[in-house]
């Protein structure tokens, strides 16, 4: 079988077929890599229990369902799922009682009047917390800092335990001096899960000095440990099992220190402990002596069942959500007291954390020596990830392999990188403080020559100064850390400068020289771009240079104009923005002014009134009738045939008909052509709609004299009458007509009307005699 994260993930979720599941289980027996990966997956699954939960009250649910129409006003709310478990409290360090206390501690003190339902009884002894057993390590449960009231009640793994059952006042360790503890330290009873199966729960006291002393002697680790405070020492079965690998034989009488996760403890002082990483490597903990006696038969070791679905368990079964804090996670990690904000100890604090997010296949070396890449048998997932492959480096499992294959590092890789960064920074600061005045390093007495550093320098700086090699350290890279710590004095090795982790220390002189001599990357990296046909035609003739014929966007005489413009735009972006805004504002002002003037100005003349005009008031004027747009005008000047003039001695009083709208064109003609008419009078009248009527009265003719009206300019109306004459006609003025002149030559009368404003000749028609005057024929010109 192939090691596969996909298979492990499906196995963890119990989504495999029985055959495949059995195959994976068989594989897990012999593959420690997959076992660790599976364990890692389980831990990640448990981490999601730290996420907060949202609860919707019943009344809100009822209202919402009624809003959706799923529930009537009088209907009762269907039964709801039990309330989710309480999420952890605020993010305080757990040793201060915050953070992931709800996860690490399976029980918590509650004053809930309704105790949760108890799980079914088992065959375990009477102690309430033997039902849940963590085979992976010791789980430290609860430390209360306050004295509970009388009705104090513990809810432990789904059971209600009276407050009297758990002793809350720990006793001091006999014979051990107890240092004064700060106020913010948690004092209280600590019960060991899995221990109570064969021994009584004993109150223990968490004291930093006693903890440190106990386990340092036993394991060689500088890790706070826990010492039992009762008369009868504890026998942490899980710790013994995990440390020794032997499940049976744990003795209750063996006074072994119990390693507890140190994050529930106050951090040790920083200053005295900083040289700890610089110390020689810490050896792995020696195996604990095997337990003296076998375990009682009544307390068999049980493995923790795999997590089941949510519906299969109650919300009080906090064991499915509460991740166990295992003593083996941070075992021997001197940095593990660093504050963390997550209840579960991250694996990255105990081993290297390679960057698999960018390119996992490149980051993980192949075991076969082949170049990194996808192997032939790799099954590529839909999103491009290698999901199942034989011997394919798995980013999730390989770090675990490295962790398992190698003994515990004295200083873990992550810590090395962090420390290296700090050292780089310190060295850079030190060099810059020394100055670059051209002095020879060997002749300059610095701090590393026995001179004590100033007090302002930190401890790390002082240590570095003390360890620096005076003559050669400033320019040559330091030696690789052969012992896992910092380079020793004078231990530089010039043969392997690249292998040393101190190669990251910047050497300012070299960097400056390299920067000065290295050509610009842009000039080198800009390869020839394939020009298009237009660019190629231009580039062959317009530019002779290194990039001739292979023009790109930045070559050529004006090729870098866009770049320059973009740089300029970036440089003066604000100025351009302001200018653009001003331009837009000016455009708006001009537009608004035009609109206002257009509204307030007199009505622009149509083409009929603007023939040959060049006035600004007639922007659509056109001198050529053939070029007139007729979109807004009626085509042609077909005058509606007016009634034939009726000559009678007794004029019949007929109402003045409404003039038929005549199409407005440049030159309008009226009348079919008559003769013998005499223009008797010219009258003006203003109509209710504001139009001015010019009425010409005719007498003594036949037919209708042909009348042609046109505008010589926007305020001058020319009327030519053919087939009519006049005898001493002196037309007056009226309305907008400021001047009227009539001249005759033969049978043609030409009349010129000067107008006070530009108007339009809307209509013109002949009408017969009416009752208002004795003339038989009238020509009405409607100006408006």
């Amino acid at each position, binding site marked *: 079988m192939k090691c596969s*994260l*996909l298979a492990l*993930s*499906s196995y963890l*979720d119990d*989504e495999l077929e029985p055959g495949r599941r059995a195959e994976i289980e068989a594989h897990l027996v012999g593959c420690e890599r997959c076992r660790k990966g599976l364990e*890692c997956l389980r831990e*990640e699954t448990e*981490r*999601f229990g*730290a*996420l*907060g*939960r*949202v*609860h*919707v*009250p019943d009344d*809100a*649910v009822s*209202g*919402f*369902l009624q*809003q*959706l*129409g*799923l*529930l009537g006003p009088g209907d009762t709310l*269907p*039964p*709801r*799922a039990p*309330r*989710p478990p*309480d*999420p952890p*409290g*605020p993010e305080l360090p757990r040793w201060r009682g915050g953070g992931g206390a*709800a996860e690490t501690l399976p029980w918590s003190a509650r004053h809930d009047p309704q105790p949760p339902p108890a799980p079914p009884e088992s065959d375990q002894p009477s102690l309430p917390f033997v039902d849940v057993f963590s085979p992976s390590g010791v789980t430290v449960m609860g430390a209360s800092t306050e004295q509970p009231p009388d009705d104090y009640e513990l809810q432990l793994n789904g059971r209600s335990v009276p407050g009297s059952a758990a002793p809350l006042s720990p006793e001091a360790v006999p014979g051990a001096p107890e240092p004064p503890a700060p106020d913010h330290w948690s004092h209280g009873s600590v019960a060991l899960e899995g221990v109570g199966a064969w021994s009584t729960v004993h109150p223990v006291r968490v004291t930093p000095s006693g903890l440190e002393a106990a386990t340092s002697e036993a394991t060689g680790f500088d890790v706070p440990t826990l010492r039992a405070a009762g008369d009868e020492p504890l026998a942490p079965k899980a710790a013994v099992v995990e440390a020794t690998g032997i499940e049976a034989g744990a003795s209750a009488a063996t006074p072994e220190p119990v390693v507890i996760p140190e994050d529930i403890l106050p951090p040790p002082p920083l200053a005295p402990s900083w040289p700890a990483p610089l110390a020689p490597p810490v050896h792995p903990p020696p195996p604990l002596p095997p337990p003296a006696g076998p375990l009682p038969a009544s307390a068999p070791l049980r493995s923790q069942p795999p997590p089941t*679905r*949510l*519906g299969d368990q109650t919300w009080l079964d906090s064991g499915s959500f509460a991740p166990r804090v295992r003593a083996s996670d941070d075992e021997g990690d001197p940095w593990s007291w660093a504050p*963390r*904000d*997550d209840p579960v100890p*991250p694996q*990255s604090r105990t081993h290297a*954390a390679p*960057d*698999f*997010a960018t390119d*996992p296949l490149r980051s993980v070396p192949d075991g076969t020596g082949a170049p990194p890449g996808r192997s032939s048998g790799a099954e590529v*997932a*839909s*999103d491009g*990830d290698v*999901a199942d492959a034989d011997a394919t480096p798995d980013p*999730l499992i390989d770090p675990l392999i490295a962790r398992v294959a190698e003994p515990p590092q004295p200083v873990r890789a*992550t810590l090395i990188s*962090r420390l290296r960064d700090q050292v780089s920074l310190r060295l850079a600061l030190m060099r810059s403080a020394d100055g670059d005045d051209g002095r020879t390093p060997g002749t300059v007495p610095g701090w590393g020559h026995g001179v004590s550093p100033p007090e302002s320098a930190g401890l790390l700086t002082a240590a570095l100064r003390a360890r620096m090699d005076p003559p050669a350290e400033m320019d040559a890279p330091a030696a690789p850390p052969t012992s896992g710590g910092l380079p020793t004095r004078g231990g530089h090795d010039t043969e392997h400068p690249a292998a040393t982790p101190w190669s990251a220390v910047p050497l300012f002189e070299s960097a400056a020289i390299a920067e000065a001599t290295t050509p610009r990357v842009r000039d080198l990296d800009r390869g020839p771009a394939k020009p298009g046909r237009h660019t190629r035609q231009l580039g062959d003739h317009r530019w002779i240079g290194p990039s001739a014929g292979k023009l790109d966007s930045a070559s050529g005489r004006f090729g870098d104009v866009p770049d320059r413009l973009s740089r300029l735009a970036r440089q003066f972006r604000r100025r351009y923005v302001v200018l653009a805004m001003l331009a837009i504002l000016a455009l708006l002002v001009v537009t608004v002014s035009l609109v206002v003037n257009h509204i307030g100005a007199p009505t622009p003349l149509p083409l009929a009134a603007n023939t040959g005009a060049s006035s600004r008031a007639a922007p659509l004027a056109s001198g050529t009738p053939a070029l007139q747009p007729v979109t807004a005008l009626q085509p042609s000047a077909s005058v509606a045939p007016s009634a034939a003039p009726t000559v009678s001695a007794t004029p019949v009083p007929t109402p003045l008909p409404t003039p038929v709208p005549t199409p407005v064109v440049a030159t309008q003609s009226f009348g079919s052509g008559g003769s013998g008419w005499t223009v008797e009078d010219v009258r003006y009248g203003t109509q209710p709609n504001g139009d001015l009527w010019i009425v010409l009265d005719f007498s003594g003719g036949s037919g209708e004299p042909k009348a042609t009206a046109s505008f010589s300019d926007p305020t001058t109306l020319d009327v030519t009458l053919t087939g009519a004459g006049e005898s001493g006609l002196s037309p007056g003025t009226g309305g907008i007509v400021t001047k009227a002149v009539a001249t005759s030559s033969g049978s043609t009368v030409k009349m010129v009307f000067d107008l006070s404003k530009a108007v339009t000749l809307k209509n013109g028609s002949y009408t017969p005699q009416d009752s208002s005057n004795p003339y038989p024929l009238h020509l009405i010109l409607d100006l408006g």
Partner: protein
Amino acid sequence: MINVAANVPATSGEFAELVSEHLDELVTYAAHLVGDADSAVELAAAGIFHAAKYPPARVRVDGTAALYRAVTRACRTGERFPPRPHGPARLWRRSRASLQTEFRGGDVASRMNTVKRALMTLPFERRAALLLRNLARLRYPEIARALECSPEAASRQLAAARRQFSSVYREIAI
């Protein structure tokens, strides 16, 4: 043979019971999917509204997946219920949330623990797959229905999400 019972439309009572049963999980899921508890209420309500409008034929069989699918889709598209007004009216008219919720143990939005920070770095589909499995405890076929993909693709999404989450978590949990 045609399963006649499968084509019987679901009653409103059945769907109301389903919604009432999973409402807390749906809002919690939406809150962690979008990273905003306030918006999660409206998004979850929009998904439930859509699912109530187009209920699945077999409520008891795939009703849960349909609910999560609708909520996932609402979170993906940003659809809210009641819908927010468009135009300038949204500046002074704020629709009331259809659900009044309470957050257990503090507000979800402000508690940015490491898990949430690592979760927010994942793509939407992977984040949804992780939450559907680890928070809502759905099976792979149900996750596939919720994410509108095949069960195989859902399993691959989940495996890839776990790997990426592990990598990110290790990076930021220092």
